[in-house]
C-alpha cells in the first residue's frame, strides 16, 4: 500500500494536517511515536488567541481563529469549545497605553477589541483585585479542550482515507516514504514532519528548542472568572530573553475548573515540577486575584513548547530534502495555529495560493543552504 502522504506526529498540528489533506482526497498515514496528542499538545491551555507580536504571527493566528470559528459548530461537546473571549489585563497606566496600542493594531486589521476602564474591568471580572487600570477585551478568542479536538480531527477522517499508526517510532525518511524503528518501511509520496521538538531527530538542522512551562488546574469554582485573563506584561515574559519568566494567565473551563499559568524556562529540560518557579507563577496570579489563595488545586503538570529563534513555526517544504515538508515549532500557539498551518501547507502541496503570505513560515529561513555564498 502506498500512501500519498505520511504525517509524522499525531499532535494537534499533525492531526489538523491529516484532516485537511484527507478532505482534498489524499490517502494519508499518521504515524505517532506514543499516543495521539501526548507531546506538547497535551501540555497546553487550549487558548485560541489572536496575537500581535509580529505581522506574521498576527496573520497566522487571525487566519487560524477564523478557521476555528468555522469548525466550532461541528466539534463534539467533549471538545469543550467555548467562546469566552480574552481580557488582556492592564495593571497600570503604562500597560493601559499598551492596551490602546493593541486595540489600534487589532482594530486596523478588522479584529474586534474593546477598551475596558478600571470600573468596567471590575464589572466584567469581580474577582480581580481593585486598583487595576483596565484592560482590552478581545471577544472572539476562545478556548478548546485540545486533546479531544485532536482526536476529533483524526476520527472525523479515519474512515475516509486516513490511517493512524500509534506507538511506532519513525527513524528515517527514505525518499520513498519512512522507515520505522523495527526496520519496516511505509511507502508514501510525500512526508510531513509534525513532531514538534522531536522533529529534530529526523531533521537535525531544524532549529527548535524546548521551553518548559507549568500549569495548575483547580477544583470546580463556577463563574470564578468569565474570560481568559492574561496580563499585558505577558509579552514581556513571552519575549524575555532571560532564561526564566512567569506571567498571570488564567482560563475558565467548561467544567467550572480554572486553568492557571504561565511559566517559561529555557534551561530546564527536566519534566519534574520546579517548585521555585511554580511558586513565582502562583504568587503572580495571587497579585491579580487575591481570592485564588483560598482555592484548591487538583493537579500540576509541566510540558515543553517547541520554540524557534523568531517565535514563528516552520510550515512548508524542506529546502533540501525532496518531497518532505515541515509543520513544527509552534511554541505556545500550536493549538490556535494548527488549523491555519494545515490550511497553508495543503495549499503549498497543491501548488496554489494561500489566503495569507506563506513565506514568513518557510523552513528555509534558517537553513544553512541559504547562507551559502553570503558573508553572514
Amino acid at each position, binding site marked *: 500500500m502506498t500512501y500519498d502522504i505520511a504525517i509524522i506526529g499525531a499532535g494537534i498540528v499533525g492531526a489538523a494536517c491529516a484532516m485537511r489533506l484527507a478532505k482534498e482526497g489524499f490517502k494519508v498515514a499518521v504515524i505517532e511515536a506514543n499516543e495521539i496528542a501526548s507531546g506538547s499538545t497535551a501540555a497546553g491551555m487550549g487558548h485560541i488567541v489572536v496575537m500581535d507580536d509580529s505581522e506574521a504571527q498576527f496573520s497566522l493566528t487571525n487566519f487560524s481563529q477564523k478557521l476555528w470559528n468555522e469548525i466550532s459548530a461541528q466539534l463534539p461537546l467533549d471538545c469543550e469549545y467555548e467562546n469566552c473571549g480574552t481580557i488582556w489585563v492592564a495593571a497600570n497606566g503604562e500597560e493601559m497605553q499598551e492596551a490602546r496600542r493593541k486595540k489600534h493594531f487589532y482594530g486596523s486589521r478588522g479584529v474586534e477589541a474593546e477598551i475596558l476602564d478600571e470600573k468596567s474591568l471590575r464589572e466584567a471580572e469581580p474577582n480581580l483585585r481593585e486598583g487595576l487600570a483596565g484592560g482590552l477585551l478581545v471577544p472572539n478568542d476562545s478556548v478548546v479542550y485540545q486533546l479531544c479536538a485532536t482526536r476529533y480531527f483524526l476520527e472525523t477522517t479515519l474512515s475516509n482515507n486516513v490511517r493512524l499508526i500509534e506507538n511506532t517510532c519513525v527513524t528515517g525518511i527514505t525518499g520513498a516514504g519512512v522507515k520505522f524503528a523495527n526496520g519496516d518501511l511505509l511507502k508514501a509520496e510525500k512526508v510531513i514532519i509534525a513532531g514538534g521538538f522531536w522533529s529534530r531527530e529526523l531533521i537535525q538542522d531544524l532549529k527548535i528548542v524546548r521551553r518548559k512551562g507549568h500549569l495548575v488546574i483547580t*477544583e*470546580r*469554582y463556577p463563574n470564578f472568572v468569565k474570560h481568559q485573563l492574561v496580563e499585558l506584561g505577558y509579552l514581556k515574559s513571552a519575549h524575555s530573553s532571560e532564561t526564566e519568566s512567569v506571567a498571570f494567565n488564567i482560563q475558565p473551563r467548561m467544567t467550572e475548573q480554572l486553568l492557571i499559568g504561565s511559566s517559561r524556562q529555557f534551561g530546564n529540560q527536566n519534566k519534574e515540577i520546579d517548585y521555585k518557579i511554580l511558586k513565582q507563577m502562583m504568587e503572580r496570579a495571587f497579585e491579580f486575584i487575591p481570592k485564588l489563595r*483560598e*482555592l*484548591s488545586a487538583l493537579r500540576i503538570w509541566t510540558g515543553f513548547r517547541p520554540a524557534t529563534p523568531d517565535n514563528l513555526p516552520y510550515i512548508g517544504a524542506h529546502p533540501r530534502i525532496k518531497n518532505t515538508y515541515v509543520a513544527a515549532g509552534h511554541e505556545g500557539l500550536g493549538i490556535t495555529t494548527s488549523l491555519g498551518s494545515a490550511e497553508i501547507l495543503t495549499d503549498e502541496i497543491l501548488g496554489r495560493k494561500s489566503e495569507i503570505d506563506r513565506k514568513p513560515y518557510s523552513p528555509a529561513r534558517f537553513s544553512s543552504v541559504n547562507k551559502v555564498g553570503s558573508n553572514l
Partner: protein
Amino acid sequence: MNTGKITLKINSRKVSVARGTSVASAILNCKSKLFRRSVSGEPRFPLCGMGICFECRVSINGVKHERSCQILAEEGMTIDTDG
C-alpha cells in the same frame, strides 16, 4: 482544653457542638448527613477521615471544597453542604 460549647451554622440552621469537634463530626450530628454530590449527582460522605480521599468536601465560610474532616468547628462558622 476548653470544653465549652460553640455555635455554628450548617445549611442555615444553628448547631451547637463541643469545642474541638471537627466540621465533619458537626455535620454528622445534623439531620441531613449528605456532605456533597459528585459531578454525576451521587451522594458523598467522609471516607478516610484523614484528609486524603476528599470525599468530605463542603463549603466553609463561602470557600468551596474544604475538607471538613481536617478543620475544627469554630464559633460563628457558616457551613454549606449539598444536602
